[in-house]
C-alpha cells in the first residue's frame, strides 16, 4: 500500500494535467462555441466508462524556446471507454494546449491508441481540433502524421475508424480523416482544407473565408468529404452513437442484433411508387416501408442526393441500403453518386453487412462535363465494388432499370444473390423512345406519317421489352413479386444467405479504379 502522501502526490499531479490549457484557454474554447477535449469525450462515451492513458506524457522538444515549456498531455487525450456498452478507443486533440498542435509525443500518443485499437479489434474514434504541425518540432511533426496515416491504412477494413472534425484540421492533418471510414462535421466549428485561405490568397490572389473554403456545409454538400453534418457538437455525438449501433466492432464480427420490429404502418409500400414511370417519389419512403421499425440512418444525405445510402435493419440485422433517388436528377448515376455508393458498398462488404439495393434509374447521366470528369473511371468503381462484395446481396428492381445502370446496380451478372422485380419494372437496354428511333429508323423515316409510325413503334417496343418478363425469362431476375411481398422475401433471402460461401481466387489485392 503506497503511503498517503504518495497518493496525494498522484492526485495533485493529475489535477494539474486535467486543467488542460488552463482557465483562460478553456474560456476561449467555450467562447468559440466549442467543448473542451475532455468534455467531448465525456459527452460521447457511456457515463464513467472513460479511462485515460498517457496523462503524464510530456513533449521532448528543446529548440525554439520549447525547453522547459509545460504542455499538459502534450495537447491530446487518449483512452478507452464504451458507447452503449461497445468498447471504443478514442483520441481527442486538446486545442487549449498549444492549439492542439501535433509534435512527436502528441503523435506518439495517437499512434499508441491506434495500435491498441487494432490489436484489440475495437473501433477507433478520433476527435480532431488542431492548429496543425507543431512548427518548433520540425520534421518530427511530419513523421508523426506519416505514422498516423500508415496506421489508418493498416487498420482499414479491420476496425471501423471514425473521424470527428471539431475545429481546424488543415494541411497534412486532413489526410487522416480522409483515410478513415466516416467523417463527422459540425456547422461553424469544422474547418478542413489542404491549403488555407492565407496561402490561397498569397499564391492565387483569391479571397475566401475559412468557412466558405472548407467549412462543414462545404464538405457535407459540395466535396462529399464528410458523411455526417450536425448543427451542434451534441447532435454530432448522437449521430456517432447511432452509427456505432449499426456497425460491428471489427471485420470478424457481425453488428449487434436488435429485436426485430415491423415497419410503421404509415409507410405503406403500395402507395409510394407511382405507376407512371415519369413521376418521381422519395425512395427513402420505400426503404422505411421495408426496414425494421421504419428506421433508416442515412449517410452523406446532403451530397450526391441522386443516390441514397445508409443503414437500416431487417429482422434485427444491420443492412446497407443503396437506392437510386428518382426525386433528385431523375436518379441518374454520375461521377459523385458512383463514388458515394461504391465506398459504402466496400465498407459493408468489409464489415459483414449484407447489402440491399433498390433500383429505379434511367441510366448514367450524359454530358460533356461528366465524360471529361471521368465518369468512365468513377462509374467503374460501382461495378467493381458490387462485383467484389461477397456479403449477401439482395436487389429489388422497383421500376426503371436501363442500360449500363441496370448492370451496375447489383445485377445478377455482378453476382447478386437474389434479384426481385416489381411488376411495373422496365428492364431493357434503353428506353422505348430511344430504342424505337434506332431499331425502326428506316420504317419511321419512310412512313407516310413518320410521327404516327414512331409512336406506334415506341408502343410496340414498350409492350414487348419495357417489362420484367424478358429478364425473368432468362433467369436474370429470380422472381417478379408484388410490392407488399418485398419485406417478406428479403427476410427470407437474408435467412437463406446467412451461411453463404463465396469463393474468389486468392490474390494480394485487387486494383479498383481509384
Amino acid at each position, binding site marked *: 500500500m503506497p503511503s498517503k502522501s504518495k497518493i496525494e502526490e498522484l492526485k495533485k499531479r493529475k489535477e494539474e494535467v486535467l486543467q488542460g490549457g488552463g482557465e483562460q484557454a478553456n474560456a476561449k474554447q467555450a467562447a468559440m462555441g466549442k467543448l473542451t477535449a475532455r468534455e467531448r469525450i465525456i459527452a460521447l462515451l457511456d457515463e464513467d466508462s472513460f479511462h485515460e492513458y498517457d496523462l503524464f506524457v510530456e513533449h521532448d522538444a528543446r529548440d525554439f524556446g520549447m525547453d522547459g515549456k509545460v504542455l499538459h498531455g502534450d495537447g491530446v487525450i487518449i483512452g478507452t471507454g464504451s458507447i452503449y456498452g461497445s468498447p471504443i478507443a478514442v483520441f481527442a486533440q486538446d486545442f487549449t494546449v498549444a492549439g492542439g498542435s501535433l509534435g512527436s509525443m502528441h503523435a506518439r500518443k495517437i499512434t499508441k491508441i491506434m495500435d491498441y485499437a487494432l490489436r484489440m479489434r475495437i473501433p477507433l474514434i478520433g476527435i480532431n481540433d488542431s492548429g496543425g504541425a507543431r512548427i518548433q518540432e520540425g520534421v518530427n511533426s511530419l513523421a508523426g502524421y506519416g505514422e498516423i496515416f500508415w496506421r489508418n491504412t493498416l487498420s482499414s477494413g479491420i476496425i471501423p475508424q471514425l473521424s470527428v472534425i471539431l475545429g481546424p484540421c488543415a494541411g497534412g492533418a486532413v489526410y487522416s480523416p480522409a483515410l478513415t471510414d466516416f467523417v463527422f462535421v459540425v456547422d461553424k466549428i469544422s474547418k478542413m482544407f489542404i491549403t488555407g485561405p492565407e496561402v490561397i490568397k498569397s499564391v492565387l490572389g*483569391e*479571397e*475566401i473565408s475559412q468557412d*466558405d473554403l472548407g467549412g462543414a*456545409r*462545404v464538405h457535407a*454538400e*459540395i466535396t462529399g468529404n464528410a458523411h455526417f453534418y450536425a448543427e451542434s457538437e451534441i447532435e454530432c455525438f448522437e449521430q456517432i452513437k447511432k452509427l456505432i449501433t449499426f456497425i460491428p466492432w471489427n471485420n470478424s464480427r457481425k453488428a449487434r442484433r436488435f429485436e426485430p420490429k415491423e415497419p410503421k404502418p404509415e409507410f405503406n409500400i403500395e402507395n409510394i411508387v407511382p405507376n407512371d*414511370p*415519369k*413521376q*418521381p417519389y422519395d425512395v427513402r419512403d420505400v426503404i422505411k416501408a421495408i426496414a425494421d421499425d421504419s428506421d433508416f440512418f442515412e449517410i452523406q444525405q446532403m451530397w450526391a442526393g441522386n443516390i441514397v445510402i445508409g443503414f437500416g435493419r431487417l429482422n434485427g440485422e444491420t443492412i446497407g441500403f443503396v437506392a437510386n433517388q*428518382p*426525386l433528385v*436528377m*431523375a*436518379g*441518374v448515376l454520375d461521377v459523385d453518386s458512383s463514388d458515394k455508393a461504391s465506398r459504402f458498398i466496400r465498407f459493408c462488404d468489409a464489415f459483414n453487412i449484407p447489402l440491399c439495393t433498390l433500383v429505379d434509374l*434511367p*441510366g448514367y*447521366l*450524359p*454530358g460533356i462535363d461528366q465524360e471529361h470528369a471521368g465518369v468512365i473511371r468513377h462509374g467503374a468503381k460501382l461495378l467493381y465494388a458490387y462485383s467484389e462484395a461477397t456479403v449477401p446481396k439482395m436487389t429489388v428492381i422497383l421500376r*426503371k432499370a*436501363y442500360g449500363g445502370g441496370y448492370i451496375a446496380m447489383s445485377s445478377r451478372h455482378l453476382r447478386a444473390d437474389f434479384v426481385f422485380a416489381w411488376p411495373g419494372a422496365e428492364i431493357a437496354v434503353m*428506353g422505348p423512345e430511344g430504342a424505337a428511333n434506332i431499331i425502326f429508323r428506316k420504317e419511321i423515316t419512310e412512313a407516310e406519317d413518320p410521327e404516327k409510325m414512331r409512336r406506334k413503334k415506341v408502343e410496340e417496343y414498350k409492350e414487348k421489352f419495357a417489362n420484367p418478363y424478358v429478364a425473368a425469362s432468362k433467369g436474370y431476375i429470380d422472381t417478379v413479386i408484388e410490392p407488399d411481398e418485398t419485406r417478406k422475401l428479403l427476410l427470407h433471402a437474408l435467412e437463406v444467405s446467412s451461411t453463404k460461401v463465396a469463393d474468389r481466387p486468392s490474390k494480394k489485392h485487387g486494383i479498383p479504379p481509384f
Partner: protein
Amino acid sequence: MPLKDNKQLTAFIPGTIVDVKVKVGQQVKQGDILVILDAMKMHNRIISPINTKVKEVNVKPGDRVTKGFAMVVLE
C-alpha cells in the same frame, strides 16, 4: 466566390418544361415545387431550396431548355 447557388435554378440536363407553378413576385417556401422539367425519362420537380420571393420566371410549358439554363431566379 459562390458556394452552392441557391438563387438560380438551372436545368441539370436539356429537357422540356411540363408545368410552371409560380409567378414573378410570389412568395415561396423551401421545398415548394417551382417548375416541372421533363428530362431523363422523368418529370423532375425543381424545388425551392430556400424561403424567398420569385424574381424571374424564364420558362413556360412546352419550352425546350438547354443544360444550365436558369429556369427560375429567386431573390
